[in-house]
C-alpha cells in the first residue's frame, strides 16, 4: 500500500535542493491514482514501461509489427465471408470488407488493451511486490503500446479505403476524439479488471470470453441501424458503439455523422474511466500483499 500524503513543509520539487518530506501512513479513500504530482514524479518510469511494452510486444516473432495488421485483416476476411457473403448481413451499401475493417481497427485496439491490460499487474507481480511506483502505469503502459499498433493498422485501413476509391472527408479529423473514447473505456475497464485479477485469478478465464461477447454486442459485423429506436441510441451506452460507428463515418466519409451515439458513448466511457480508476485507486495500496 503506497501512501502518499505530501506534506506542506518540503514543497520543493524532488530535483530541487531541499528534499521533500513524504509521509507514509494508512490511507483511506481515493488518493493515489488521482495524484497528478505523484504521476509526474514518476514520468520517466512511465515512459520506460510504455517503451518496454512496445519493444517487447513483437520481439522474437517472425512477422513483428505486421501482427498489428494481420489480426483485424484476418477477422475482416472471415467476417466478409460468413456475415457479408453467406449470411448477407447488410452493410449500409458499403463494401462489406471495408465496413467491417473500419470497425475492426478500433475494436482490436480496445480488445487487446483489455486482454493484456487486465493481466498486467499479475504478469508484473515481481515488480509490484518489490518496487514502489504508481501501479496504474502497468495497464496504462499496455494501452500506450496498443496505440502504436492502432497507428499501424490505421495506416493500412486508410490505404485500403483509398484503393476502394473513397476519399476521406473532414470527418477524418474526428478520429483523435474517437480514439480517446476507446482509450478511456479500455483504461477504465482494464484497470479495474487488473485490480480484481490480483485477488481473483478468475478474471483471466472470464476476459477472453467476455471480449467475444462484447464483440457481438458492438456493431462490428452488423450496422447499428439494424436496431430500432430507442434501442439503437441506448446501445451506445456500450462505449464501443459510438467508437465503431464513428470510425466508419470518419474513415469512409459516408453516411451521416452518428453524433448522438458518439456523445452517449463518450459520456459512458468517462463514467467507466472514473469508476475504474477509482476502484483501482482504492485497492492499489494492498496489491503487494496479495499478488
Amino acid at each position: 500500500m503506497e501512501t502518499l500524503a505530501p506534506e506542506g513543509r518540503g514543497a520543493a520539487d524532488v530535483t530541487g535542493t531541499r528534499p521533500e518530506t513524504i509521509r507514509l501512513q494508512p490511507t483511506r479513500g481515493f488518493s493515489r491514482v488521482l495524484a497528478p504530482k505523484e504521476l509526474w514524479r514518476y514520468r520517466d518510469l512511465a515512459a520506460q514501461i510504455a517503451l518496454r511494452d512496445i519493444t517487447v510486444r513483437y520481439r522474437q516473432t517472425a512477422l513483428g509489427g505486421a501482427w498489428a495488421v494481420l489480426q483485424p485483416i484476418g477477422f475482416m476476411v472471415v467476417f466478409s465471408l460468413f456475415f457479408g457473403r453467406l449470411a448477407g448481413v447488410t452493410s449500409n451499401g458499403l463494401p462489406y470488407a471495408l465496413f467491417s475493417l473500419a470497425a475492426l481497427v478500433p475494436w482490436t485496439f480496445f480488445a487487446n488493451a483489455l486482454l493484456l491490460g487486465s493481466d498486467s499487474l499479475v504478469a508484473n507481480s515481481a515488480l509490484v511486490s518489490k518496487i514502489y511506483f504508481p501501479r496504474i502505469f502497468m495497464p496504462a503502459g499496455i494501452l500506450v503500446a496498443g496505440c502504436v499498433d492502432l497507428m499501424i493498422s490505421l495506416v493500412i485501413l486508410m490505404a485500403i479505403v483509398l484503393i476502394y476509391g473513397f476519399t476521406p472527408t473532414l470527418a477524418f479529423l474526428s478520429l483523435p476524439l474517437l480514439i480517446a473514447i476507446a482509450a478511456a473505456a479500455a483504461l477504465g475497464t482494464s484497470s479495474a479488471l487488473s485490480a480484481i485479477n490480483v485477488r481473483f485469478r478468475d478474471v483471466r478465464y472470464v476476459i477472453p470470453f467476455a471480449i467475444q461477447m462484447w464483440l457481438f454486442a458492438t456493431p462490428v459485423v452488423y450496422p447499428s441501424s439494424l436496431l430500432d429506436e430507442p434501442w439503437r441510441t441506448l446501445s451506445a451506452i456500450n462505449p464501443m458503439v459510438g467508437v465503431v460507428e464513428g470510425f466508419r463515418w470518419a474513415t469512409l466519409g459516408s453516411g451521416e455523422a452518428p453524433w448522438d451515439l458518439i456523445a452517449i458513448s463518450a459520456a459512458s466511457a468517462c463514467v467507466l474511466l472514473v469508476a475504474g480508476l477509482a476502484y483501482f485507486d482504492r485497492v492499489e495500496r494492498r496489491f503487494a500483499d496479495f499478488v
Partner: protein
Amino acid sequence: MSDVAIESHGLGKRYQLGLHRRGYGTLREAIAEAARRAAGRQPHHDDDAYDGPDLLWALRDLSMTIRSGEVVGLIGHNGAGKSTLLKVLSRITEPSEGHADITGRIGSLLEVGTGFHPELTGRENIFLNGSILGMRRAEIRARFDEIVEFAEIERFLDTPVKRYSSGMSVRLAFAVAAHLEPEILLVDEVLAVGDAAFQRKSLGKMTEVASEGRTVVFVSHNLAIIQALCERGILLEQGQAQADGPIKETIDQYLGTLERASGQDLLERTDRDRRGYFETWIRAVGLRDASGGPPDVIISGHPAKITVELTEEVPSLECQLTIADSLGQAVTTLDSEISAPVDARDPEVGPCVECEISSLPLLPGRYRIDVLVKAKRHIQDGLQGAAFFEVQPGVMNGRPVPPAGAEGSVIVPHAWRLPA
C-alpha cells in the same frame, strides 16, 4: 531544515493470516460473502478495522529516528519484521497504523534484478531497471558507461538478457543498483549474489556508498557484513525494536538472545522460523569432545561428535548441520543427504542422529550449530542456534592451534615441504 532522514511514530503493519482463503479465494466465495453481508448476517469487517486472532503484526509500534548520513543495520531473527519494515519504508506496502516521514529521495534494493525483462537487451534493461529503481533518464545516460564497466558485460550489451548466464545478469543488476544515487538507500540481502570476486567488489561498492554520507538502511543475515558497514544497529524482535545503539552492542545483544534461547529446553523453543512437519521434534543438540578426555572441553584438532536427539524415530531421516561463527557467518555445512560409504544407518541408534568429526578443524572461538531435520522429502524441524560451543586451543597434526596471527575460523590439516 532538520537533517532527519527517516522518522517513524508507532509504525505498525498487520497481515491477515489464512491469506489463501481470503486473498486467493475465488470470485464465487467473494460473491457469496458479499451476499451474506448484504443480507446483514455477518458484520462487514473491513480488513483495516478487523481485529481478530488470525492477524499477524509483522511490525508494531515502531518509533525511531534515523538522521541523514547514518548507516543503520537491521538485525533480528527470520520473521522479526526486518523485511516488512523495508517494504513499508520503500512504499511497496502501506503501514496499517502509525506513520513514517521520509525526507529525501529513496531508493530500494530489495532484490537484485527485479524488473529485468528477458526479451530486452542489456542496454535496454539498464534504462528500464534504472528508472524502476528511481533514476532519471538523464542520470542513467550519464552513468551508463560506468554501469557497463562495473558489470563487465561490454560485449553483450545488445544481447537479450535471457541469453545471459545467471552470473552476468546478477552482475548487471547489481551494477545498475549500485549506481543509484538516492539520498536514502534501503538494502535487503543483496550481497549474497554472484561469485566470490564479485561479492567482494559489491561489498567494496557498498562501503563506498556508506562512506559517501548517504543514509543507508541495511538488512542482512550476515552479521560480519553488517558490523563492517554499519555504525548503528536496530534489533527487531516480533516487529518491535528491542535494542537500538552502536552496531557492536546491538549485535552482542542479538547473539545474547540467541544464546539465552539455546539455554531453554529445545522442545519449548517457539522461534518464528521454526517450521516443519513436526512428525519428529529436535529434543537436544550437543557437540562433545570424543578423544576420551572431558567431553565438555572442546579442543581444536580433537575428534568430536555432534548429537541430535529427536522425539520420534522417522524412516529415511536426514540431517543437515550448519556451524556458524560468533557473527553468524556459516563456517561449514554437514549434510547427511550427500552420503558416503563411511555413513551408516544403525537400527540401534534410536531417535538420534550422530555426526562424527575425526579432527575438529575450528580455530578457538565461539560457534553455534543450526540444525535441519528432514524426512520423506519434508523438513520436519529446524532450529537456528540449537547449540553453542566454545573451542579451546589445541594441536592439529602436531602443530599448535591457533597459529600466531591466525585469521578466519578454520584450520586445515596440512604438511609443508620446504628447501633444506
